[in-house]
């Protein structure tokens, strides 16, 4: 039956996605919730909670406040706290009860902004979608509100990220770095998809090795000021579906094209980089793209979609590899498996995914009962360990933990796939 899970976990929800996306930007995020969301988020969804002093709170809404529609309590609580704590912005994210009471997020945010003088957002999350939905919404809000028009902000100084010592050393050591003149923003970075194991830095290092100049990382390791300058970039790299909403807004506001892909692999990242360089030049020559869809840059995958067989006669029906997880990272990993292992790999996407991203062999599988039949015939299943109980014994299970699914349980085992994917691929080869 749909919506039931006998034994597997649940993905982090939209409200937590908002918090995760905004965590490092100096704002104050309030989950409009009675209780529970805050401890869930800070325990299972937010590895940075102990070390970074980000302001994430709950409203603590009570039964009577919900019944009486007492929005004033929330508004005054937020305005009072903001007067002392002085956040760069305020964000309210919703949960099931505000959804039921018809809470007007936009209007309440407007009142809070008027009273506090601080830019405020109302994100109508429901607690019933996955973190991707919420994070995408939050990044879109930042793109809408905070990214400066480069025409208005032409000032001196470096446009690129302030480099850490480690990163700088890496760049200097990279003798093959050839600047290609293309500036890029990385969109969709949250620990829910990339943990805190350095994957975010590895993506930047890869881009720099390929000659790109990185303007901002949304939103791990970049300040709000760096993100404000994002429109100075030529292209956005969407590494998870959480970055898709911002990519759309940045296209609408500044006509920026976007590439979709996560640079995991020995061959795929190079193809992705080449494609970005080529496409950006084409976009510049053409004066931009006519539509958001036309502004997409992607690397073709699905090597076996033409009906040909992979190693050992494998097809998408038998002997294939199944990758369960977030759409874009899983697609990139599936592409790499096909390219480097010679085995058809299909994606079982359990979170929200942009339309037309998935290939015909891939499936949207939000529920346990959607996934189980799709695993029949799989030779390899690459997924979070909490999926293991539903994986058939005939398939080889390859653990790829995700904070978004198993929280902190397997954090130490989450690999930096940009830095080293071979440890995973060798289990398939």
């Amino acid at each position: 039956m749909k919506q039931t899970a006998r034994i597997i976990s649940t993905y982090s929800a939209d409200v937590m996605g908002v918090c995760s996306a905004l965590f490092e930007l100096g704002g104050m995020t309030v989950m409009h919730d009675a209780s529970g969301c805050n401890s869930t988020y800070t325990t299972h969804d937010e590895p940075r909670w102990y070390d970074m002093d980000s302001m994430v709170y709950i409203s603590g809404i009570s039964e009577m406040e919900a019944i009486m529609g007492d929005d004033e309590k929330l508004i005054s609580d937020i305005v009072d706290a903001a007067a002392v704590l002085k956040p760069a912005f305020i964000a309210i994210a919703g949960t099931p009860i505000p959804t039921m009471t018809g809470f007007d997020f936009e209007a309440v945010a407007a009142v809070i902004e008027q009273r506090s003088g601080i830019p405020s957002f109302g994100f109508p999350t429901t607690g019933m979608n996955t973190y991707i939905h919420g994070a995408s919404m939050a990044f879109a809000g930042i793109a809408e509100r905070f990214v400066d028009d480069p025409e208005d902000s032409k000032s001196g100084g470096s446009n690129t990220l302030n480099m850490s010592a480690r990163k700088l050393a890496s760049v200097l050591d990279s003798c093959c770095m050839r600047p290609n003149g293309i500036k890029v923003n990385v969109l969709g970075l949250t620990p829910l998809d990339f943990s805190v194991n350095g994957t975010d830095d590895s993506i930047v290092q890869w881009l720099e090795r390929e000659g790109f100049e990185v303007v901002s990382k949304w939103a791990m390791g970049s300040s709000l000021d760096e993100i404000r300058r994002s429109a100075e970039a030529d292209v956005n790299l969407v590494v998870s579906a959480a970055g898709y909403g911002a990519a759309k807004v940045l296209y609408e506001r500044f006509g920026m094209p976007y590439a979709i892909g996560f640079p995991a692999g020995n061959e795929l990242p190079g193809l992705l980089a080449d494609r970005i360089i080529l496409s950006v030049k084409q976009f510049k020559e053409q004066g931009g793209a006519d539509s958001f869809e036309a502004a997409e840059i992607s690397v073709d995958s699905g090597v076996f979609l033409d009906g040909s067989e992979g190693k050992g006669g494998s097809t998408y029906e038998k002997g294939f590899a199944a990758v369960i997880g977030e759409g874009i990272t899983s697609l990139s990993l599936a592409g790499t498996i096909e390219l480097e292992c010679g085995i058809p790999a299909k994606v079982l996407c359990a979170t929200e995914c942009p339309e037309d991203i998935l290939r015909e062999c891939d499936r949207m599988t939000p529920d346990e009962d959607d996934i189980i039949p799709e695993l029949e015939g799989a030779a390899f299943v690459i997924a979070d360990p909490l999926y293991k109980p539903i994986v058939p014994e005939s398939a080889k299970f390859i653990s790829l933990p995700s904070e978004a699914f198993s929280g902190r349980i397997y954090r130490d085992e989450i690999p930096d796939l940009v830095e080293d994917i071979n440890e995973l691929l060798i289990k398939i080869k």
Partner: protein
Amino acid sequence: MLKKVNEKQNIRLSADEIPHVRIADANFPAPFRSGLEYSSPARGTWNIVHTGMLIPEAHEIFVCAAGCLRGVVLTAAEMGTTDRFSTVAVRENNLLDGDMEDLVIEGVTDIINKLPKRPPAVLVYTSCVHHFTGVDLDMIYATLRSRFPDIDFTDCYMNPIMRKSGLTPDQLMRSRLYMLLHEREIDPQAVAIIGNDLPTDEDSDLMKILKGAGLKIHEITSCKNYEEYQQMAESRVYVSYNPDAAPGGDMLSERLGGTHYALKFSFDYDEIDETFAGLAEVLGTAPRSSEEISALRAECEKELEETKKLIGETPVSIDYTYCPRPLGLAKLLLDHGFNVTKVYADGIPGGDKAAFESLQKEHPDLMIYPTVHPGMRFARTANVEEQGEVKVLAIGQKAAAFEETDHFINVVEGGGMNGYEAVMRTCRLMREAFLEKKEMRELVQVKGLGCEVCIR
């Protein structure tokens, strides 16, 4: 120390700006105005998943939105009990379509039919959305009981929106824990200790008295299977000593016929004597003699003296997760010359009212700090900056986290202690914490301290 998210934002608070109030100026029972809430990284207290797992062989099914499921499903995963845990996700269409009853009934049915082994009991947890949509829970449970007559069902709740009205979710959960007991013949020699998550200390006053009287003792924490759990229903007396278990104890007594006695958890010698005298009366045993009481008090005084001698003027901070009477403990220690400087508590428990009033008069400068106030986000940094190298001894996980100290007592919910033994054990733990460092950061973030007791 915490890393500032944005160096350009002047958002850190100094120690003076961290919210607090002198106890002399504090209001009872709510010293702080309610508002936005911060979540401390200290996680040792139990939640409704841990507590429900105390029923051996029972299966938990949560029916709620994904955001609410996330915390409970990972609680079960972290404690290694995913095979006893399932979920039904409520989605927006269910709110709009009015099919919430069907979702619960068919979802629970689907899960039970998929389980490799039929559980003797199923705990179905509904949530705030069911409460607000007026779901017919009676019909739901009647239908489930008729579909699965071999399974005991009970109604459990994850509705934190009710935490400020009526029974708290914690009180409600502790009451549900015993709703599955079937009435059976009462054994006059049987006693059950109810409502505590952690096993009662073998050395505690309560255990010594019950054992000394030769009584058969039941406690959910020691039940190895569902039948052993059912044997609790033969008890003539149900004893609770966690204040949140008292409402459930009364319900149990009313339903099964035994007597419920709410033993007071206290650090006050006279109150300890009074509450144990009351217990003796209910049990029909002899109360403690004055000689016994004098000896116990002398032993406590000796422990307190030894502890004070060791830790001297070291600042001591206490938080409410350590035991049900944080102010009672603060009073005991301050009266014995300890340098208790802070108590972390968002509210004053009813049972602590006398200690609160006494402290207002006798130790007016004791500071009360909240734990959820938004300003507490910056308490750790402020405390570290203010204290420098000064060692703080923390009693309880939240105090340890706020004070950023590795010298702390890692105990929650009273840790199974009671009576004079609670005084003595606390002293011993204070000495241990003073002398030995613990890995505070790692230890306090573990959910449900001691929940291994549920895995059987």
